């Protein structure tokens, strides 16, 4: 073998692959070709980027800033600049974008542009729907705009189904149909398990869990939706007008016994509220023995506050001779139970959104003054 032979058998070197660069095409552009360039670069339908850009424009104006930034950062097709100049331009563009974002944040946060809150939820729902469909079907969100739109539509369908099942199950359990709701849940589980044995049923998992878990939450919280909904206020003017029990499904229930002139001795009182706030107001000379439960929420028993899940209160102070004692048996599924007393000058004005999360009746600093002194707290 000669040197010439050796030279002849050398394999030809593969040509280096041209570096893939993002550019703005000149032949397929609506404004400056940014979305078209992104579509070509990521091999995705540019319509998706156009839709996202329009949505982001209304979502606080970020789309506009990002589009301008992209025009600065992405060169036109055929106008690729030398590396050093490109780096310098890129650094300047990034600084510009940061300044624009800071400026836009201060402008848009002061209420100049309010359309974003309309589009934000739609964008959020679309993303959640895509995720749900991915979870349910196992299909990754990819492909052209039509396929992604179909995935979003199917995901929204699954979300609506799950929401309806959750709401229906919770309502059935809360309206006194606990047994029926439990049977429906067991049936749903059996169908799911049966479908699994038949080799399918993956898509049934989410709807079945959406039904079962709210039913269980309503049962655990003892939420009772009997008694209607809304704000109800009871102010009996005499002891005879005081009922044995007060019920409300959802809302605010105020039982104001300050004018009831209760006679000495024990007076049982039952309060049942599904969701919301129950308030018991008593005069200074009435003692309250409290045996209550809140599924999820807080019990404000005069100046004692206890919150969380499965909140129980068991306070049985004796009343001095001559004083009335309310023996309270309250159950609130989800919300707040407040017990206290205000004189007329201290009643809080009803401001639904004016108080930070704890209702309008703040009993901090009050004590159960109608009880014997040693239990005054």
């Amino acid at each position, binding site marked *: 073998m000669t040197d010439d032979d050796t030279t002849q058998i050398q394999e030809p070197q593969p040509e280096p692959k041209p570096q893939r660069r993002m550019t703005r095409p000149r032949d397929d552009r609506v404004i400056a070709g940014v979305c078209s360039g992104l579509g070509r670069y990521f091999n995705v339908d540019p319509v998706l980027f156009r839709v996202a850009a329009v949505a982001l424009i209304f979502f606080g104006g970020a789309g506009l800033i990002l589009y301008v930034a992209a025009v600065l950062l992405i060169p036109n097709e055929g106008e690729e600049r030398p590396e050093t100049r490109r780096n310098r331009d890129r650094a300047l563009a990034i600084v510009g974008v940061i300044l624009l974002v800071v400026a836009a944040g201060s402008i848009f946060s002061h209420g100049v542009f309010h359309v974003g809150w309309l589009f934000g939820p739609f964008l959020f729902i679309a993303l959640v729907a895509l995720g749900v469909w991915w979870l349910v079907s196992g299909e990754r969100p990819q492909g052209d705009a039509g396929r992604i739109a179909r995935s979003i539509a199917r995901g929204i369908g699954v979300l609506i189904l799950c929401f309806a099942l959750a709401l229906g199950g919770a309502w059935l359990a809360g309206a006194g149909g*606990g047994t029926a709701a439990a049977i429906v849940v*067991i049936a749903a589980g059996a169908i799911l398990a049966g479908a*699994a044995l038949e*080799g399918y049923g993956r898509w049934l998992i989410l709807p*079945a*869990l959406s039904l*079962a878990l709210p*039913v269980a939450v309503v*049962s655990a919280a003892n939420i009772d939706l009997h008694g209607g909904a809304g704000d109800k206020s009871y102010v009996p003017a005499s002891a005879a007008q005081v009922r044995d029990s007060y019920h409300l499904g959802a809302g605010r229930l105020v039982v104001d016994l300050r004018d009831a002139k209760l006679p000495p001795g024990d007076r049982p009182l039952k309060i049942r509220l599904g969701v919301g706030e129950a308030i018991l107001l008593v005069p200074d000379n009435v003692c309250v023995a409290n045996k209550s439960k809140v599924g999820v929420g807080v019990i404000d028993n005069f100046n004692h506050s206890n919150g969380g899940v*499965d909140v129980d209160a068991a306070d049985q102070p004796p009343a001095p001779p001559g004083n009335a004692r309310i023996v309270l048996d309250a159950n609130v599924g989800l919300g707040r139970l407040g017990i206290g007393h205000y004189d007329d000058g201290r009643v809080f004005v009803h401001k639904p959104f004016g108080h930070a999360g704890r209702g309008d009746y703040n009993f901090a600093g009050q004590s159960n003054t109608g009880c014997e002194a040693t239990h005054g707290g």
Partner: protein
Amino acid sequence: MAGRRLQIAPLVAGLGVILVGVLVLLDAQDVISLSFAALAPLACAVLGATLLASGLTRSG
């Protein structure tokens, strides 16, 4: 006829849902008192077991 292939994740979820339903039924019949202290770990266990079964099935 194509053979049926058992799906583990829906089976685990289905059994978990049945368990939840049975507990709700017992609570409705006042046999037990269902509380969040019991429900929270149960819900976590059902969801966790379902996700685990789903993940194991895919990786398998």
